[in-house]
């Protein structure tokens, strides 16, 4: 038995991503998103008997905050991949009969970090591989520096240009203009604007990098049998694949290859589809270069051909191959680990036919990379 078709996403909820929500907390934002997803599914919180979080939001604390007592609860602790991994774990849980209806929820409050005495948005210098071997040499806080290293190597190996990746960021911003939940809604940019934005870690520029934000998202997954009697057209999970990569980018053998090579192959095998069958894609995009490499590794384009692909392809929601139809994290914003979760939420939203003015034309088969 595989997980093919064994999980149905029947409700989604999203607290709009914003730079900051004054006076709010991660748990408060998570509970708000959960309420939206529960209402969207047309169920009550008493129907929820499973809970999966990113691990930053502790399952006991979430359960207590919204007064639920699920039969299954876990936090996945998978950094940016937490949203996709949590969806996989939730599907496994309903498929195996451990529980019937799972709430997946995660969010972020930048004020929580301030309240705890940590400067918001900066990687704290806790004793680690990073604090001993990298930070003394001038590695930037957060992930910027590592992605600059990958970008430089991709240019070296494949001749990718900064102009080509600027088009990715511009296409996604076009999508965000139709998404009121996106932090950059109402702020159009061109590829030229991206190119002219200042270097952070050259070749990586400001408008190719995510902005830390506040927000939260939630979804409800249940069995396909239960989904039949519910109000929404469900989004079925057809295949899942996970490949664990290194915690520190410089520990990789190849800086231009991502674990998506294996995770996507496994997901497609389970689903019984080829990369060419995929109609639209939602891909983790903390930086342009990461989404670029993952799209290659997924087999959606040949390895090394992401640059020409973006030159030739309209990837907006109106285009021939839509990618990151809600703006992605680059234009939607990154509310902590709920940033990566937005790709799952948007994929489900499109398949459920709830994307409004940015609804893609062909919305039956989506590849999500968390």
């Amino acid at each position, binding site marked *: 038995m595989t997980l093919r078709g064994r999980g149905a996403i029947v409700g989604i909820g999203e607290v709009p991503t914003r730079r900051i929500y004054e006076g709010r907390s991660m748990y408060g934002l998570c509970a708000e998103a959960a309420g939206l997803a529960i209402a969207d599914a047309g169920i009550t919180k008493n129907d929820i008997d499973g809970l999966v979080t990113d691990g930053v939001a502790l399952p006991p604390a979430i359960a207590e905050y919204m007064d639920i007592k699920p039969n299954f609860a876990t936090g996945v602790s998978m950094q940016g991949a937490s949203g996709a991994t949590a969806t996989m774990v939730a599907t496994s849980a309903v498929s195996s009969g451990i529980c019937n209806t799972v709430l997946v929820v995660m969010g972020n409050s930048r004020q929580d970090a301030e309240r705890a005495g940590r400067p918001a948005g900066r990687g704290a210098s806790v004793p680690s591989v990073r*604090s*001993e*071997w990298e930070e003394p040499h001038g*590695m930037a806080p957060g992930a910027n*520096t590592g992605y*600059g290293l990958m970008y430089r190597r991709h240019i*070296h190996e494949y001749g990718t240009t900064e102009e080509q990746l600027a088009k990715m960021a511009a296409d996604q911003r076009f999508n965000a203009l139709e998404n009121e939940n996106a932090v950059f809604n109402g702020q159009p940019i061109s590829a030229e604007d991206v190119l002219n934005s200042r270097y952070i*870690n*050259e070749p990586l520029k400001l408008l190719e990098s995510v902005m830390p934000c506040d927000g939260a998202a939630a979804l409800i997954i249940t069995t396909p049998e239960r989904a039949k009697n519910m109000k929404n057209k469900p989004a079925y999970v057809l295949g899942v694949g996970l490949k664990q990569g290194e915690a520190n980018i*410089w520990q990789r053998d190849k800086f231009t290859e991502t674990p998506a090579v294996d995770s996507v192959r496994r997901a497609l095998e389970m689903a019984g589809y080829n990369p060419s069958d995929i109609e639209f894609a939602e891909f983790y995009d903390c930086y342009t270069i990461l989404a670029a490499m993952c799209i290659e590794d997924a087999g959606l384009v040949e390895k090394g051909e992401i640059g020409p692909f973006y030159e030739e392809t309209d990837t907006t929601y109106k285009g021939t191959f839509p990618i990151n139809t809600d703006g992605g994290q680059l234009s939607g914003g990154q509310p902590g680990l709920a940033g990566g979760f937005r790709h799952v939420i948007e994929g489900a939203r499109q398949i459920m036919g709830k994307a409004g003015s940015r609804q893609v034309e062909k919305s039956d088969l989506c590849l999500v990379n968390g």
Partner: protein
Amino acid sequence: MTSAYDKPVPIPSNADLTKPFWEAAKRGELIIPYCNSCSNIFFYPREVCPNCFSKDLDWKKMSGRGHVYTYTHVRQAVHPSFQSANGHIYAIVQLDEGPKIPSSISGCEPEEVYINMPVSVVFDDITEDYTLVKFQKC
């Protein structure tokens, strides 16, 4: 040596484990963990060999030669102390012996650095306790 070093100093997660590395750096040597069981050389230091799980580990002196595997020109500094008019280079250096190691690159302007550029080790006494292992253009 300066008493007013204001950049981040190494903060080990297990100072007992990496003490030999930092002591070697102080006397001008670059040493890398070596596994007596399977001959693996690896970096960063670990309590067991990441290849065979052996705890029979030693240190091996490196030639100090290598090349720039990849790099980024850090324009928005890190830490206020790293902020300068033209930023700095943060690189991953691949040693001739194989392992990769993070380093800044000195001995040339940031714009002159390129992938595969030959580099050699330099030792920078930043504090009483720490000598950074860095690389410069050959």
